[in-house]
């Protein structure tokens, strides 16, 4: 071959590629593959669906709305936006052991954290602890970039500004006595958020970094005083702050507030009566929003999720039905050349 090429330089190369002779696998939608394939997929989906459904059924969920729009709601008087530092208490009971670990969520509905203008109004540079952004916040933070006196807001932007600030205390009522259920607020945010994405400026004490800046307008306290009880849980790595900053994709969402894993409640919440003390600060009535708390436990595949199991079951069944239809069609109109 080499010799031949030497003879005529114009002759195209004789390679499998240039001569389009590459070995090729030619799949064909033959009945022998498609019909069993459908049966297999169908059976697998039905199996997974059943497993998911059973798992999901075993998960316990307790939702308590505390918006307080209704007259009889214990938080009715707190829903008045003019009322400051209002506290209301919600009573509820659990019939059987709420298996642990129990997760304590707060939920908001009709709340558009997914609104683009809202979502982009933040400065990840600031939140990464970059001091240059402290002086001149990212322009997307408008209208929460500078205050009226042209002082930079740190942290800036609407997401930050609208930080959820209701707080909760949970008590079990044992023999008429209120026994506080310890709530664990550590590690409720994403690991990457806590360790990578959000950083405090490397200035000690932390508050010095915020010199010349103002706190977000709606915040009662500046960022370095978010958690008065734990000095390490302040600034941009405050767990509640991190949870809020991971904005929801849908207008009805819930966010993790605390875990119940400690003390007498390691195995879960025992049956009995409980009271939830709510520091009602966050106004939602202006946009017809609702607020709730949710208690839930999880399985290997996460929280309660009926839809997934049902969807798997339906699709699996459809696949099996399809395979039967195809089998019938195939038997009737056999592929012409296959006799």
């Amino acid at each position, binding site marked *: 071959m080499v010799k031949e090429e030497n003879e005529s330089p114009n002759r195209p190369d*004789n390679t499998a590629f240039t001569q389009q002779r*590459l070995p090729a696998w030619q799949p064909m939608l033959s009945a022998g593959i498609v019909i069993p394939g459908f049966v297999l997929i169908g059976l697998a989906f039905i199996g997974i669906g059943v497993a998911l459904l059973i798992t999901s059924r075993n998960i316990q969920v307790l939702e308590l709305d505390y918006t307080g729009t209704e007259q009889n709601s214990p938080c009715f008087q707190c829903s008045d936006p003019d009322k400051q530092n209002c506290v209301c208490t919600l009573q509820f009971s659990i019939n059987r052991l709420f298996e642990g670990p129990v997760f304590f969520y707060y939920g908001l509905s009709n709340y558009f954290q997914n609104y683009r203008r809202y979502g982009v109004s933040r400065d990840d540079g600031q939140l990464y602890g970059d001091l240059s952004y402290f002086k001149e916040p990212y322009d997307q933070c408008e209208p929460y970039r500078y205050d009226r006196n042209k002082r930079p807001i740190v942290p800036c932007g609407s997401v930050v500004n609208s930080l959820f600030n209701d707080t909760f205390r949970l008590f079990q009522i044992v023999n008429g006595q209120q026994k506080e259920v310890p709530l664990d607020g550590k590690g409720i945010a994403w690991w990457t958020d806590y360790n990578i994405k959000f950083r405090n400026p490397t200035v000690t004490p932390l508050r010095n970094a915020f010199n010349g800046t103002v706190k977000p307008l709606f915040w009662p306290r500046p960022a370095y005083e978010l958690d008065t009880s734990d000095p390490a849980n302040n600034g941009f790595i405050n767990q509640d702050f991190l949870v809020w900053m991971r904005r929801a*994709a849908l207008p009805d969402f819930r966010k993790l507030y605390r875990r119940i894993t400690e003390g007498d409640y390691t195995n879960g919440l025992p049956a009995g009566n409980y009271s939830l003390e709510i520091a009602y600060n966050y106004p939602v009535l*202006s946009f017809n929003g609702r607020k709730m708390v949710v208690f839930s436990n999880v399985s290997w595949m996460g929280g*309660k999720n009926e839809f997934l199991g049902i*969807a798997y079951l339906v699709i699996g069944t459809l696949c099996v039905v399809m395979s039967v239809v195809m089998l019938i069609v195939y038997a009737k109109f056999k592929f012409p050349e296959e006799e």
Partner: protein
Amino acid sequence: MGHCSSKEAAVWRCLQRNLLQRRREGSGPMTESTMKNCTMLNCITTSKYNVLTFLPINLFEQFQEVANTYFLFLLILQLIPQISSLSWFTTIVPLALVLSITAVKDATDDYFRHRSDNQVNNRQSRVLIRGSLQNEKWMNVRVGDIIKLENNQFVAADLLLLSSSEPHGLCYIETAELDGETNMKVRQSVSVTSELGDPNNLAQFNGEVVCEPPNNKLDRFRGMLYWREKKYTLTNQNMLLRGCVLRNTEACYGLVIFAGPDTKLMQNSGRTKFKRTSIDRLMNTLVLWIFGFLVCMGIVLAVGNAVWEREVGTLFQHYLPWDPPVDGFLFSAVLTFWSYVIILNTVVPISLYVSVEVIRLGHSYFINWDQLMFCSKCNTAAEARTTTLSEELGQVEYIFSDKTGTLTQNIMSFKKCSINGHSYGEVANPLGPHPKRLDFTPFNLLADPDFCFYDDTLLESVKVGDSHTQEFFRLLSLCHTVMSEEKSEGELVYKAQSPDESALVTAARNFGFVFRSRTLGTITTTEMGRTVTYTLLAILDFNNARKRMSVIVRNPEGRIRLYCKGADTVLLERLRPCKQDLINITSDHLNEYAADGLRTLALAYRDLTEEQWDMWSESHQCADKEEDLLSAAYEQIEQDMTLLGGTAIEDKLQEGVPETIALLSLANIKTWIVTGDKQETAVNIGYSCKMLTDDMTQVFIISGHSVQRVKQELRRAREQMIALSQTKDSEREEVVEGCGEVCFMKFGGAGKQSQCPPSNRMDNISGDFALIINGHSLAHALEADMEEEFITTACACKAVICCRVTPLQKAQVVELVKKYKRAVTLAIGDGANDVSMIKSAHIGVGISGQEGIQAVLASDYSFSQFRFLQRLLLDVPDQRSLEYPKLYEPGQFNLLFNKKVFFICIAQGIYTSVVLFFVPYAILADASQNNGEPLTDYQTFAVTTATALVIVVSVQISLDTGFWTIFNHVFVWGSLGCYFTIMFAVHSQTLFSSFPNHFHFVGSAQSTLLQPVVWLTIALATVICIVPVLAFRFLKLDLKPQLSDTVRHTQLMCEKKRRPAGGRVASNWRRAGSVSEGRLGARGGSRRSGYAFAHQEGFGELITSGKNMRLSSLALASFASRHSSSWIETLRRKKHAHTPPSTSGECTPALSHSSSVLGCSQEAPIEVETVQESRMIPTTST
């Protein structure tokens, strides 16, 4: 010079007078009018840019592309902060990349153009300045300069030939670069200027030339020379055009008429029409629709935004007040509209253009690389000269093919003959071992070693001295106009005017009747080793009306004999009415030959007594120069002849031509032969390449000379077709019932039903019809009101042959089919005369490796053999489609990519996107990680959906991939790999820490993809998207299989069962092929004359006048010069009378051949020397 070309019929005026100064005194001052009209230098620029203009011009050109402008538009939108929904660099990076790559490519191209411009502009030429010749660069030559050209030099500009070193102001040029023809042409100066021999005289020349403005017509020039108060008409015959090469002429002087960009060469190299494929147009339409769809979506979403802002957003202002400039929901909606235009820009498949271009580029490379389209004989590979037409190769419906050089090799070979009722040259057993080629050398030392003949009985017959056979070959050795040249003893070279004659004389030579030389009045031959000199008494020349030629010779014994060869139809009428048996047998033989597509001639002789000769000779003399009288005189003596036999010459087809045409016709591609050649020749080729067969229902010949006549003929043809097909249909219906292969038949009919009403009936014509139309009739048929009539008739025929057509008509035919049939057309040809056709067809194919390059330069694809066409069109995968040419049909009917298919794709796309959004929506709304953190966050949702999308698309692509080669694996898996790699990179800490506000997805990929729920979601979405497609395809395959599926399936099954390839489902065309071969064996009686003879009139006279021979005696010389002008006139007159008005390509070589002889013979004999070096000019001496 814009001001000149804008004048319509205005004259192009050049004031020579002022330039006289340059000639005499060097560069002198010029008057204003000179400046205006005549300052053009001979400097050419084909480059587009210079350093300064490159950027603006190139960018301007690039932004004429829709895609680039669209990107620019997006970029501008993105720079408005209120609108911008994506970062600006998402647009500028790809845009800058595309722009810079194209710019670099353009710059490189232009650099090479600059280089070649420089090279050409700096060539040296000798210009007459200050009364003497000085070297000057080409670029400095001006209009009005006088240039001296030497032998083998390129002509620098369009020149008016003033004088030449040769007598009569003649010079010879080769025009290969201009029109692709390699034969020499003669040019002659105006007689008054031809005497201006030397520079001193020329410097005084102060004529004024008024001529037409610069144009691109290579074969026409009109002008006037005003000199010394006299007018001289100038024609193309006086012009030397830029690009020609001076040959066989020592030197000549020319006056520059057009320089630089005004030259005909440069005018012709104008921008070639940019060809766009129908897919391009369809894509443009679809992209526009999609853009409309995008705008609609933008409007819907903007309205949605307005409603939302009004109902919800106003309430939500507690957390998010409206931007100060956005003071209401309406304004917000307006901004949102633009935001959506940006964010949804990927809906517009701009990348589709890029993908399509890349695919086509790949196709072109595969065409270039194809070894099976490589011709080792001419060492040329196929070349895709245009990279943008590949898909149209799969949609061709009509092929327009040139004949000479494309279908045929233009080589004639002596195949068979019939002598005294005995046919020789038949191959006894076509299936037997290949017969041995006869070796003539032991028998005949003068034999031509290249001559092939296989039937040794003929040689035996000559050897045993059969008188008929010997007389037969004697005739062939005497009756012709060939000149011979004997370089050394026994080494004969024949210079024939037509290849037919050369073949016949060569045959005679090999069979022992060697034509050695001729003089004015003698022919010397070597007959069976014995030298014999015949006295040539007369040549009764050939012409198209007579269809025969004769010679009258006196042999050494003093007997006078007339030898005649010609068309059987003509000759058989002029035989002595005896030996009827022989006549019948011979004409049967000739018919058999004709049916094989061979070109036949009948041969006869007549003995003349001295009295007869004397008498006729006198009458002949009287008839001199009067054409009618002359032919009457010829008629008179060509009577009472005795039949000798007939010859059959094969006009050698290129390899594999009949097979290719048969295969293409099975693929529902119609082939039309469009040739400038004669009707007989073209029809013969039609038969030999099996386009025409004797089984055809009817062959219609349209050769009317008036509109009415043509119309009538066309109409009659149509009526007959309808009548015949009706009878045939009724026969066929009975046949079809018994026929099993209905599924193969059904396919063809459905596609095209959109013809104009009168043709409706014509569409359903069944039966094999053929139409042969002559050039002069075609001219009428192409008139506006006849077009439709012609096209309906022609398209109902299986085969169409247009003969004697001019290059322009070739293009018109193509345009006509394009216009009325809306079909994809392909034109294939090799000569300059095919250029117009190649340019106007959707796809132009040039045959390369032959002489001219003009056709190749104008073509989109070029290769060296006609048969490669089948591979070019039916390739993918080659073996399969060559075996089942029917697979080609879906492409012709556009079944694979059309609006319907497109909308199905769009519907599937919408379905997929709905699934991809709502499945994760429904699942993730409630889902949480197993550490309790919810999964509803925006970034998780985004990563899940995007991953599901990439996986669904990859699976879909895998389903659509029929051939999984290593590349498919690499690209499918590679793109998945790329997706994950890029995602992890973009979500990495490194990028985030540098640009925290742009890469804020940090960590999302890791966190999301670790969740089992996410993978369950992706799996669910994938299955929901793919399963319906899979089921639909399977059911379609079972219920309504396409031919391609069936073939694919069959082949795979065959491979599996290891049956021999091809198997039971034998290919149609092979069967067809064997049938036609079978037909060759058992020939039905063809009643068609196979006469064809590519010959030009006038050469007989040339010989008898002796003008083209080197004459040794002065006496003869004076005789020659005395007569020369008259015979030239005759030749010219006849040429005009017997060729179509505008010289069609096929006969151009012959014509120019004759004109070169014409030029030469005008010379005074002694000065002929240089000319005789030319290969064209036969020279002999006795």
